[in-house]
């Protein structure tokens, strides 16, 4: 793989994700099980899933719809109780209903507060935490410009496009400076072009700040563009299927990256494996 060809920059400025393997473990899931009550019985959504996320890794949790990947994320976030197994963030066991201040979460659905302006949305967490107004204004202004929302600070969300609203949701979470970022298909509802824009923004921020990220998606292209490692889940019940290192050099350009041979190779390699799961999902349907 020719690194320089990917990004068009000199190899000296590149920081690959390799070598981070020695970093400490931030998230560790062991034997995770989740069952839901279903008509006339129980449905196993997640079956004995174990994985670890190390400091500064960007993990994409990839799998077909209904494979339980969002369920796993919600358990890690403490939004959902688990039926079995263990989840640790650093050395603390995750309990449902208990919020961990180190963790930030970006939802798939639009959860921007429609009654708050863009500024008030982004500053929400700081306001709750009692950060003084002047201090808050400075940080919000910085976040607004980082998200490319300059000039929309006092607009209400209904006047914004879906992509802009998701930028607000992203900055609302990032302004709290979470060390661990959980993202549930945050760009799933956006069109291709807007999605690429969002990838660019997210990559810029992540390549600078290197939070530990667990990113749920069913979009292989998205996973390859963003992640340093892809965890592939099987169709329901969700089990760990394979683990891929994505060692494209950084900084990455989401558009240029897709044109490289390395991207294409890894894409078709993983696609083969993912395709089997898509077919199984389809066969499952009555």
């Amino acid at each position: 793989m020719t690194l320089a060809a990917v990004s068009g920059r000199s190899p000296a400025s590149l920081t690959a994700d390799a070598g981070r393997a020695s970093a400490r473990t931030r998230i560790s899931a062991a034997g995770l099980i989740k069952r839901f009550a279903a008509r006339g019985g129980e449905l196993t959504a997640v079956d004995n899933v174990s994985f670890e996320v190390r400091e500064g890794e960007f993990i994409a949790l990839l799998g077909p719809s209904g494979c339980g990947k969002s369920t796993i994320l919600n358990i890690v976030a403490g939004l959902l109780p688990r039926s079995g197994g263990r989840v640790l963030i650093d050395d603390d066991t995750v309990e449902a209903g208990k919020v961990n201040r180190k963790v930030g979460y970006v939802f798939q659905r639009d959860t921007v507060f429609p009654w708050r302006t863009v500024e008030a949305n982004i500053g929400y967490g700081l306001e709750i935490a009692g950060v003084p107004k002047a201090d808050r204004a400075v940080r919000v202004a910085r976040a607004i410009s980082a998200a490319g929302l300059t000039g929309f600070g006092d607009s209400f969300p209904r006047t914004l496009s879906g992509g802009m609203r998701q930028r607000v949701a992203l900055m609302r979470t990032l302004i709290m400076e979470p060390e661990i970022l959980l993202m549930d298909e945050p760009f799933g509802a956006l069109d291709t072009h807007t999605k690429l824009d969002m990838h660019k923004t997210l990559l810029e921020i992540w390549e600078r700040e290197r939070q530990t990220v667990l990113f749920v998606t069913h979009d292989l292209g998205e996973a390859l563009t963003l992640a340093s490692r892809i965890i592939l889940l099987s169709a329901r019940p969700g089990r760990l299927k394979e683990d891929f290192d994505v060692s494209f050099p950084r900084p990455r350009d989401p558009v240029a990256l897709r044109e490289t041979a390395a991207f294409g190779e890894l894409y078709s390699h993983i696609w083969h494996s993912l395709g089997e799961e898509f077919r199984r999902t389809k066969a499952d349907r009555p």
Partner: protein
Amino acid sequence: MSARRSVILFWQLLILVMLLTVWQWGFEWSKAVLPRAYVPTILDPYFIAKPSTIWDSFLRLGCLKHIGGFVGCLHSDDNNLWFATLVTLKNTWWGFLFGSASGVAAGLVLGRSILLARIVGPYIVALNSIPRIAIVPLIILMFGLGDLSKIATAWIVVFFVVFFNTFEGTRAVDRDQIAAARMLGASEWAMLRTVVVPSALAWVFASLMPAVSFALIGVIVGEFIGAERGLGKLIIEAEARANASEMMVVILVMMVLGILLAFVVRRLQSHLLRWQPQFEMHT
């Protein structure tokens, strides 16, 4: 003004003029033209008065015959038109305020606590099934003929309307928005204040528009059944004298009051809900 608007205004004025004309002269005209059996008694001024006599009664009740009388009326506390209006307005406003405040509070608490809602649910349904007017005599027995019984009547009418809407609104809050607030560090109380309340506000206001009219109805019913002052009392007095024009004056004043109260609530609503598209024009 666009052509369309002037057309609408033209027709509205025409209808008004026609109604007033028929009201004023319709009975006499039909009596002159039609055989006795076909004269519409509904137009009989004995029952519905006439615009001219209503105007006359308005000037008399409102002490508007001469300036000195008007000033005297404003300063007296016998149940003249202005004094009665003020009393009814005041009682309506307090009843509305207490009723909606307690309705919102109860709706929020029960909306957030499924257990509590299950426990007291049947009692609320039972209480709500009592026709409100039936307990007005009881309220007057308890609180006397003064303002307190009128405020209590308005309160009890407003409370349930606002309570049910707030309860539904609290239940309808987006669970992901609640989760988002939690993940951003909001405590239960902060989340209630910053997510549940603003989100349920649209539901609350949907009930406040009818509630303010109900409050006025509650106060007037209270005044009908037992009162020393107020617009309802004026109507009862006019009825005792079979004076339709005086009743009409009071009814028209009540109409203006109703419009005024609805307008105030509407303005408040469009300010607090300015994030919603239908209120965009007011920002």
